[in-house]
């Protein structure tokens, strides 16, 4: 297939599936809390809605940055889709993309001039310190498999069995990362916590918000995709879908049942988890 | 004569340096320290001379007084400030009394 068409196809799938997964997550949380919950399609509809709303810019914003940052957010996750499902490229690149995602989060918060955005920006710095170690799970994978290419990691798993059985602690770390990135009422997601309104998105309206929401959907899809690929190996698209739905439902349940931690505690929880995960995995690798 | 073997430039300079350093550590007053510092520097220059790097020794010899002067300026200034502060403090105390 044509590479361009492949990219377009995968990005569209990522966007649609990600949006619907968010809907499922909200539905699960709502049912746990004995509410009817919004329709599953709600997140997608919101995204669409923002594109036909009027776009306004705050007078205090840092101008080119404020607009461009949303486009960059979109661009990096499209790049992630290219690295991931399309070309099965190096994992280290995904790590870099995640690092830039943290930066974009930070700057989307601070460039608007809103105090809520500013708080979210400071928290983004905090959480970057915690989420990058979690993402360093990829290094553990490298230590285990000896390769950074996704295609060879998949081949390795076809030969030696799924990595989730050999590296359960690493999988735990990655789940913690996914929880910290989940959108609604996550215990660890301090940048979008509801005590600072909408975090870094507070001052982004109209088109810009639409872009952010598209990127969020792709982000969610990509995180789950990386998890499934790296820990379960090659799956059929149907299995990917089912796996994603299950993971999303699980995380929805976790979010519905846990309190929201304060920033310090959230960060240190993540760091502690990362520490346990990294050290534990390395010990398990050498002694078991 | 094994004792006399030790009297060459290297050993003497090393001894001077060590004496200087002990002096710096042991003497409490900054001015004394500066004097001992000159001793340390002297030993050091002797050591360079023993290694036959005359130009380096010359440069070190020029920088030695410079650092001494800088130290002196600093110490004197600090002294002045401290005295002034004490005076102010005692004045304030006097008012209180």
């Amino acid at each position, binding site marked *: 297939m044509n590479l361009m068409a492949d990219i377009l196809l995968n990005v569209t799938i990522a966007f649609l599936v990600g949006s619907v997964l968010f809907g499922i997550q909200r539905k699960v949380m709502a049912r746990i809390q004995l509410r009817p919950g919004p329709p599953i399609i709600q997140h997608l509809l919101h995204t669409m809605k923002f594109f036909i709303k009027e776009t306004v810019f705050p007078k205090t914003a840092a101008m080119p940055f404020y607009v461009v940052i949303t486009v960059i957010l979109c661009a990096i996750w499209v790049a992630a889709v290219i690295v991931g499902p399309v070309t099965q490229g190096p994992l280290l690149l995904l790590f870099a993309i995640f690092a830039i995602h943290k930066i974009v989060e930070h700057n989307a918060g601070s460039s608007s001039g809103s105090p809520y955005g500013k708080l979210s920006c400071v928290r983004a710095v905090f959480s970057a310190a915690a989420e990058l170690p979690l993402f360093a799970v990829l290094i553990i994978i490298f230590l285990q498999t000896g390769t950074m290419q996704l295609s060879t990691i998949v081949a390795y798993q076809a030969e030696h069995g799924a990595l989730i059985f050999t590296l359960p602690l690493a999988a735990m770390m990655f789940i913690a990362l996914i929880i910290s990135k989940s959108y609604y009422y996550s215990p660890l997601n301090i940048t979008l916590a509801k005590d600072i309104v909408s975090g870094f998105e507070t001052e982004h309206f109209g088109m810009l918000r639409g872009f952010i929401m598209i990127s969020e959907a792709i982000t969610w899809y990509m995180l789950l995709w990386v998890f499934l690929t790296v820990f379960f190996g090659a799956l059929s698209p149907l299995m990917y879908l089912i796996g994603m739905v299950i993971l999303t439902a699980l995380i929805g349940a976790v979010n519905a049942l846990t309190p929201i931690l304060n920033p310090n505690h959230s960060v240190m929880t993540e760091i502690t988890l990362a520490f346990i995960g990294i050290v534990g995995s390395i010990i398990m690798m050498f002694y078991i | 004569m094994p004792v006399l073997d030790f009297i060459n430039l290297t050993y003497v300079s090393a001894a001077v340096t060590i004496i200087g350093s002990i002096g710096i550590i042991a003497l409490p007053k900054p001015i004394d320290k500066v004097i001992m510092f000159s001793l340390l520097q002297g030993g050091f220059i002797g050591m360079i001379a023993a290694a036959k*790097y*005359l130009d380096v020794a010359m440069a070190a010899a020029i920088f030695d007084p410079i650092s001494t002067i800088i130290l002196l300026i600093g110490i004197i200034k600090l002294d002045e400030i401290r005295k002034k502060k004490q005076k102010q403090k005692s004045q304030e105390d006097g008012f209180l009394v």
Partner: protein
Amino acid sequence: MKLGRLWNSLATPKRIPKVFSIILAVVLLAGFVVPLTYDVHQVYLKPAPQAQVNDQDPFAPYNRGGSPLEEPATYISQYPQFAQHQGMITSYLSPIAIGVSETTLYFGTSILASPGGVIDEILYFSRGFDTILESSIMLMASVIATWVALHFTMRRKEEED
């Protein structure tokens, strides 16, 4: 909750240098038990200490052979294929340096440090990019210091007005 308080205290800026230095100290302690293996095949070798001085060489300790503008000096560099005129800078001597070298035996360091010599070759040519960075560091630090000095620490009177 004890753990929570510990976590909070770790986030105090004033404590961070201390935490850092403790962690670094612990790692440095490990350095005493790690077997240190020194590889004798280094690049840019030096003759043994004091060897050249004892030979009464006027360029000691930086004589690396070669003759000015004619014959390059010899030394082991990492990538000779990327350097066309390797060794020429090392062997270069300015006229003053030649004059000095003919009069005295003990000015080798000054002769070397004037343009030409192996350190200049490393600093400007084969590892010139390092020097770009280190002089930029110097420049940036003084930009910061002068800016703060000009706009704040030295203009107190104006701010009072």
